[in-house]
């Protein structure tokens, strides 16, 4: 007992006897406090180092320049942000519809439908989005000598929507499979045909289950819509990234990119908070 008073109350384990650091010989609660204290100290040191070494005037001038930011408004909101929202919405809507079709194909009894859906999904999950956009925007016109009809919207919708459909198809399929089999069987035994039971009983429940992952897909697509910038769209059809990049050239200042970034966060952070709330609600319901 005398020994344990010297070394702390829980001496005895073979590890503790080989005291490898001063921390190891402390009582557990005190050790926790000391470790946490060290972490705070490191944080404060780093913070002070950053504050002291960074060239604040240059930062303010180059990235957060209010004089340069002012002329960006209102176009950054009325044109760029609006177009980002429109492109994302169009791509997402297209992706959802095609994704649902693909999900049903993957669950089909008819093998060739399953194969087709699998090939589509693996193809679009495997190729880079940027390459696909180049293909639609420049590859197709070069090969055929013609623009796609409804340019640039066609390239934007297909460019964002077709790859999104591949990811959404997998999410929707998982949702459909998460609906208990009894639901479909109950609806059928009550007189519904298989397709009608699928449409009015299973799919609505599947979507309710997958709202959180779908919202995550929407966040990803919002960010991916920035790649549309490479399609060389015209003034009225610029979205946030293209807008920011063009203003960067005009103003010779990085502030427009920062403003564009903040605009993305304006969309993604509320969505992200929404996902968290939905997930919390689902967890409670379960």
């Amino acid at each position, binding site marked *: 007992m005398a020994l344990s008073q010297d070394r702390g109350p829980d001496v005895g384990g073979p590890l503790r006897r080989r005291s490898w650091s001063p921390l190891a010989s402390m009582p557990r609660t005190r050790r926790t406090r000391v470790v946490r204290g060290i972490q705070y100290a490191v944080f404060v040191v780093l913070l002070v180092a950053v504050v002291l070494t960074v060239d604040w005037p240059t930062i303010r001038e180059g990235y957060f320049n209010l004089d340069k930011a002012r002329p960006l408004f209102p176009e950054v909101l009325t044109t760029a942000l609006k177009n980002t929202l429109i492109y994302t919405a169009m791509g997402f809507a297209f992706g959802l519809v095609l994704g649902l079709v693909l999900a049903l194909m993957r669950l089909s009894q008819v093998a060739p439908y399953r194969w087709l859906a699998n090939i589509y999904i693996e193809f679009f999950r495997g190729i880079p989005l940027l390459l696909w956009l180049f293909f639609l925007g420049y590859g197709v016109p070069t090969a055929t000598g013609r623009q796609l009809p409804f340019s640039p919207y066609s390239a934007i919708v297909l460019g964002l929507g077709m790859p999104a459909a591949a990811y959404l198809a997998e999410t929707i399929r998982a949702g459909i499979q998460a609906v*208990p089999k009894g639901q479909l*069987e109950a609806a059928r035994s009550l007189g519904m045909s298989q397709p009608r039971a699928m449409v009015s009983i299973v799919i609505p429940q599947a979507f309710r289950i997958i709202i959180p992952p779908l919202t995550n897909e929407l966040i990803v697509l919002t960010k991916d819509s920035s790649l549309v910038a490479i399609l060389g769209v015209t003034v009225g059809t610029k979205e946030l990234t293209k807008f920011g990049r063009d203003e960067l050239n005009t103003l010779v200042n990085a502030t427009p990119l920062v403003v564009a970034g903040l605009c993305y966060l304006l969309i993604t952070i509320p969505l992200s908070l929404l996902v968290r709330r939905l997930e919390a609600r689902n967890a409670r319901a379960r």
Partner: protein
Amino acid sequence: MSIKVNRVNKTFGEFVALDDVTVDIPAGSLTALLGPSGGGKSTLLRVIAGLEKPDSGLVEIEGREANHLPVQERGVGFVFQHYAAFKHLTVARNVAFGLEIRKRPKAEIKKRVAELLELVHLENFAHRYPSQLSGGQRQRMALARALAVEPAVLLLDEPFGALDAQVRKELRIWLRKLHEEVHVTTVFVTHDQEEAMEVADSIVVMANGKVEQIGSPDDLYDKPANDFVMSFLGPVTKLGGQLVRPHDLELFTVPEQDTVAATVERVTRLGFEVRVDLNVNGRAGPEGGPDEVWAQVTRGTAEQFALEPGKTVHIRRAPDRLVQPARSA
């Protein structure tokens, strides 16, 4: 509304779920499909409903070949073990579901739903959601939903399997009464012999995809077709290598014709009756140990014999109440 199942086979990969099954279910009967899990009883029910397609064989409902009829055209009501309630609909809308599909007039639907909710004692829960009901209430709702469309046959797959023992017992009696009221041909699956005996007027015993025996509860209990049915339907013990019901053992203080001497090992009260564990003297059991047998006697008999460990009694099968399998396995 009779159901005929003729020489039906069904396999899932390597697993034989139904092996040449033939069953006749008369109109208006209340039939139990009884057997251990994996015995094929649920598959048979699902084949009758059209939820599974048989590999071969014929299913007839009301004298009409049903093999090619989809589920929704078979006129069956199906009740699932886990209720399969439509969570997004109220109790009343759940019950109305089948009628709404059939586009019945609104007033008629309302009247019928009210009647059914009364029948299943849920009239005060019409506007609740399934999540606000207890397990027993949900199952009663599922039953009302299945009955709403006036099915030719009502099929229940382990209807009380997910409920606790007390609710189970209540619902059993209630199902029996309900059947007396509505008289729809009813088939239910259970692995609980007590449930089958208590509720059904006809029992189909199934094991390993085969029908072992079909008959009334009394038939099965008193004239089991084989050792399996005998041991599945009630307690059994072995005397001289043969199955016997413990309450069919006679005890004597002195040797009688055909008796063997046995030593009392233990005496246990089972409520009204007494379980007596015995060792047959001078005979080895199947594993080389003592030949153990147990008898079930009334308390009166136990007191009359002053049964206690170490006492020697003489036992035999009661010749007048002999239950023994028709063919020994």
